[in-house]
């Protein structure tokens, strides 16, 4: 059985973010990149399944050449090979285009089961994997916290507010993974070395029979901005009556709350 895991290279959320002067892109020179944390759980789930039932695990990503670094992490965890969709036209796609490219990639490797993190922590769009399922006409379940395989049927638990669904899906299927499902393993140092020798294939949009024009986004990015700090701290000095008077003055004059 072939399992595809869709993974994304994203900025480490502990990085310091800055917006480029064009206000339309993030300055990447000082960012540290990692595998999107939900995807780590997806990779772990695929490797567990491989260990239990035997399977070929292929990690699939779309991005620049540097996306291979996070693919190597997945290979060091135990995935067998990688497929990177890269090159002209891949850097300006929105979720729709990414999903079409990844769907073509998944189709090209003939995966029966597709895992992905429930969302990527950079744009939080939460839609690529579901779009892939629709494009490939596969069953899908999202935000899954428990996964079992029963022959040709997947049995999953899906988190909902205050409870969970248990769903059965026929394969082929796309499953997006929530954090609590497992604990992603840390690759051992020998496995990090071995991952260097595992293959990562590269395909362009053209290789997948797609064109950049056809995948062009239907939405336009207007501008990006950093979050503002909403809470201000202001400590008022002096004795109690003076502090009360100052507080009332601030609330009236500065904050116009009274």
């Amino acid at each position: 059985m072939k399992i595809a895991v869709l993974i994304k290279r994203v900025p480490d959320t502990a990085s310091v973010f800055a917006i480029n002067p064009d206000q339309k892109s993030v300055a990447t020179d000082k960012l540290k990149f990692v595998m999107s944390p939900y995807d780590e759980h997806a990779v772990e789930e695929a490797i567990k399944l491989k260990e239990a039932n035997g399977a070929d695990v292929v990690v699939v990503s779309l991005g620049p050449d540097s996306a291979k670094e996070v693919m190597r992490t997945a290979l060091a965890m135990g995935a067998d090979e990688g497929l990177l969709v890269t090159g002209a036209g891949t850097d300006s796609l929105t979720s729709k285009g990414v999903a079409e490219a990844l769907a073509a990639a998944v189709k090209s490797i003939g995966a029966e089961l597709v895992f992905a993190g429930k969302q990527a922590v950079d744009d939080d769009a939460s839609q690529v994997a579901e779009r892939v399922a629709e494009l490939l006409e596969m069953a899908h379940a999202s935000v899954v916290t428990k996964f079992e395989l029963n022959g040709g049927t997947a049995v999953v638990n899906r988190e909902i507010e205050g409870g969970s669904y248990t769903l059965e899906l026929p394969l082929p299927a796309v499953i997006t993974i929530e954090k609590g499902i497992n604990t992603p393993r840390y690759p051992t140092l020998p496995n990090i070395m071995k991952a260097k020798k595992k293959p990562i294939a590269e395909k362009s949009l053209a290789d997948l029979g797609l064109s950049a024009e056809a995948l062009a986004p239907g939405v336009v990015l207007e501008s990006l901005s950093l979050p503002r700090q909403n809470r201000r701290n202001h400590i008022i000095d002096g004795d109690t009556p003076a502090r009360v008077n100052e507080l009332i003055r601030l609330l009236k004059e500065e904050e116009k709350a009274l």
Partner: protein
Amino acid sequence: MEKRLAPAPETYEQVTDLFDLDADWSSEQQAIAGRVRKMVDEHFLPIIGQHHNDETYPESILPRIRELGLLELVADDAIDPITYGLISRELDRGGSTLRSLVSVQGSLVMGAIKMFGSEAQKQQWLGPLGRLEQFGCFGLTEPDYGSNPAGMQTRAERTADGYRITGSKCWITNGVRASVAVIWAKLDGQVRGFLVETDRPGFEARHMHGKWSFRASETASLYLDGVEVPETALLPGATSLGRALQCLGQARYTIAWGACGAARGCLEETVKYLKERTQFEGKPLASHQIIQYKLAWMAAEITAMELIAKRLGELKAQGRMKPHHVALAKMNNCRKALEVARTCRELLGANGIHNEYHIGRRMVDLETVVTYEGTEHIHALTLGSTITGIKAFS
């Protein structure tokens, strides 16, 4: 004015990798260094202060080293010199005792078996040593022969079916928990290496207490009182003192890198402290000129140390590493690391002598590192003879 979120704390690159050297390493090398660093931050730094204080061994780190498969890399030759160097640097950033534990097992014991052992010896020992199921130790230094190992008194004599070894060794890291000891002894006047199981009758390892430095490392004295070993205990390739020194060359390589880590650790902790602690009208200590002057010099020294370690790694990878290269790197980097640690200790004021901070421990441990595996002076003499062509020692 619009307020932005406070910036995240600076990364260590800004403090200790000003020349962006780490960016040169392959993504695997960076990933491995990162994994070791994380292990040190999460599992070693939180516990080591207490162990140093109590003179106890940090047992809980052993499963973590096993989990990383760190010594397995060494066992199956899957490691290149730079990767081994980066691992040593990151371990030593936690503590020189941690790096020593790995250097002794990996470079001295497994190194001796790999370089000089028979196929049967490699089969028997490299696996268990690599998985840290067994410990090994390396017995060269003797109570009366430290810098002059050629004078060693330990003797081996032939018996009907092997050898009988008598003598004593001291300052033996991992000696207490070793199941096998690489023992260097004179056989017919020639230095040879033997693999001695430590449960053989007549073998005793005594824990040496009372060290000011390396308190979290188990150091032993070994006593061999007519220990009988079979013919197969002889390391076939270990035919001279030069072979023992070859093992030390490997270990000194890891020390040259380790010293960079110890110095990095000190500077990182000091910069953090100086930015947080305020004196004189609420200004952080880091804002004062005299302090920045010292920080600048330390950053420059660490950069120089790293460049030396990097070059040494390149020479080793190309098979061109000579004893005087190792001597220069070990001599320079250990001394500079100690100077950085002492300066950092001073900059922390009274807090610098308290075990709430790691700097005092790093500083006293570096006193060991300057001395062991060839003292600074011995390395200077090796270099002196290379530079002048005149040996100032016999």
